[in-house]
């Protein structure tokens, strides 16, 4: 059976150490986010001097890429961008209808973002932050999030 873009997205995101939560609709997504918040703790002070809305950062992706398991997040807004960087747990909401097949197919989207007559900052996020800089041991969670949760809306029937 041929894999759908959504199946491939899930497999590739998981291969990059993301945790994918497939939910049927927006209402279920909101519940899922609350569950993650509850489990991971919403203490705002865990990240140093800068106050954050919560210890769990939540943002919404504009697009996904199946081949790489990537979420594309428009992060022109600085506070929103920091939501994807500073907290130890990062949650990204993605609509399965927005999944593109591969990197080259993201060009039109990116071009539209960059030609609106204003500055822009677009983040391609694939899994949590990681390093292999000490003895090539793969370690998840360096300067960015330690965990990445993708809440995939309409992901699976």
């Amino acid at each position, binding site marked *: 059976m041929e894999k759908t873009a959504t199946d491939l997205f899930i497999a590739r995101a998981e291969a990059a150490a993301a945790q994918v939560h497939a939910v049927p609709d927006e209402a279920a997504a909101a519940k899922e986010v609350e569950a993650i918040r509850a489990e991971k703790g919403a203490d705002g002070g865990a990240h*140093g001097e800068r106050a954050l809305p919560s210890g769990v950062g939540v943002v919404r992706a504009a697009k996904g890429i199946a081949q790489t*398991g990537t979420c594309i997040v428009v992060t022109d807004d600085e506070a929103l961008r920091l939501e994807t*960087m500073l907290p130890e747990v990062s949650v990204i909401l993605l609509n399965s209808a927005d999944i593109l097949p591969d990197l080259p197919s993201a060009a039109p989207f*990116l071009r539209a973002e960059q030609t609106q007559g204003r*500055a822009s900052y677009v983040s391609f996020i*694939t899994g949590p*932050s990681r390093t292999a800089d000490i*003895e090539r041991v793969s*370690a998840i969670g360096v300067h960015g999030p330690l965990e990445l949760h993708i809440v995939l809306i309409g992901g699976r029937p």
Partner: protein
Amino acid sequence: MSYAHEIEEALKDGFLRRTLDKFAVEYRAGRDRVFAEVDERALIQRIADVKDDAARRMEELYEKFRVEAEKRGAVVHRAKDAAEAREIIAAIAKENDVHKIVKSKSMTAEEIGLNAHIEAAGIEVNETDLGEWIVQLRHERPSHMVMPAIHLSRGQVADEFEKATGRAQDHEDVHKLVKTARAELRPKFLAADMGISGANFLIAETGSLAIVTNEGNGRLVNTLPRVHVALAGLDKLIPTLDDALSALQVLPRNATGQRLTSYVTFIDGATACAKSPTGRKILHIVLLDNGRADLARDPLFSQIYRCVRCGACANVCPVFRLVGGHRMGHVYVGAIGLVLTYLYHDRAAAKKLCQNCVGCGACKDVCSGGIDLPRLIQEIRARFAKEDGEPVASRLARYAMRKRPTFHRLLKFMRFAQKPFAGKDGFVRHLPMALFGKQGFKSLPALAKKSFRELWETRDSWLAARDSSPRATNQKHLTVKIALFAGCALDFSLPHQLVAAMKVFAHFGVEVEFPMEQTCCGLPLVTLGEKETALDVARQNIAAFVGEYDAIVTLCASCASHLRHWYKDTLGAEAEAFSAKVIDFSSFVHDMLGLTEKDFTRLDWKVAYHASCHLCRALGVKEAPRALISAAAHYTPTPEEESCCGFGGSWSFKFPEISKELMHKKLDNACSGDATHLALDCPGCTIQLRGGADREKRKIQVVHVAEVLAASLEAGGAK
């Protein structure tokens, strides 16, 4: 410490050796896995085409980039050299009253020696990439472009962290050390007034930067402080977003075996920034020339613009694997490091480094931009040779080889001179090993009693000695006429391999001619930097092979690749017809004659295979020899068949320690199973591995593929 001594020390560094050995094997496996999902060759070709075009249009792309980026609130600077780039950045820091800087990885910053300059102005600079931070704490250079601290153990890192934090550190748990770095650097990000980053692509169409990272430090560097300075070479300019996205399918796959890094950030102009007095990010983009614009017009070297700094050329380099990046690089590491060191950084260092390359071609094979790195390194060596005037070896070679009869007389004289020392088994036996010094790791081959060209005269007797009458059942009789190109090593040292090939040809009725005027292919001359003499011998060979042949067959993979590629590339039309006919023995037998297992009797030999660099990479021949071995015997796959044996012609005499280690590893791999024989297609590798197997008393027999086939036919005939 002398350079030779440094290399010896590196070889003794057990930790480094184990790490790099493990890495070499795992890297290959990871890379293969993720490239299987895409069209590797097409993607690499696309990078080559896009970057070649960008190099030609560098000025136009720069203008476009500048206009678009400034439209979106960035300030674009162009620095003609390292000093100017340092000044520009120092001035930006001053005018914005900057006291603390955080930096993410930038090889260009290494290139211009930025940190020392800024620190001298009393500004604190902190590297934030984990590996870069570690080497910064140790006041060292990165030993790899992607993994700067790959030469260090976790214990060394823990010691360094103890000094930096004043707290005890776990010496075993890498994850805890990573946590320390997170905790230690987080306040530095928050306190910094300026972030300095590199950029992987500068996209002209929209004036945007693409930055590729894994740790997340890069995004903090360009987000938290109010000022962001991006520093990149002019070679990072590419026309469109599509070009960048396409290249991103290769870069992470080649760098770390990832489909994509954790983060790819596209910054297009100055976005809103709470900390900035103007409410917008203060964004400066500094483009470094430092010789790039001139180089973009160089017909040979402009191809280095295809480099995307993936580090793959180091990852697969057998010499890097043995000695590490501090000895196989300068600012940049690996094959590209050797070339860039020569072009930009330090000619004296480049002269030493470029001698290191064994010319195996592994780097070229994996390069994201398909850069012909070994060719560039060879050219640099030739230039140094020219500058230095004539070393004795070159003068001798030129004198001896310009005229074929002189050269062949000389070889005969050497055979006479070695007589008292030659053993019966084809090795030089009776010289005290002390005379060989560090060369003693392998037995050296003696020149054969009779060269092939002498044996040729009496071929009717030795070919008729066996029953060659066609057998009705399985014997083909083919109407193919070939000319045999022997090559010096086979002709004078290993003629029995040519004899074996002749038996195979005779068995299948192939008509063979051996033009007597043929001489050395010229490859050793090119290696010595003797291009003029190499051209002379090339012309002699072309003239010797003017007859009507279906193919020019050689048992030497090195000769084959030189005759095929160098002749055509250097002589053009003059060599075209000749080069087109050159084919290696295995491809000829497998592809042209179409022989299969039906044509052979299976021997009970278990045969491991060594894929010679010049065959598997330079000529791209992979299947034919393995298929033939399977047809005539039992092919026994062993690990790392395609890694270099460490011969490299005269190179093995310059770097005996490295050559020895490569050979040793090769034999370990070949002997790891139950193989009785090790087959290959190149006399250079034969000399290296037969000599090594003899010296190390290995049980394996080193043979040419032709010998496997001849033995199989012989066994069949005896049936």
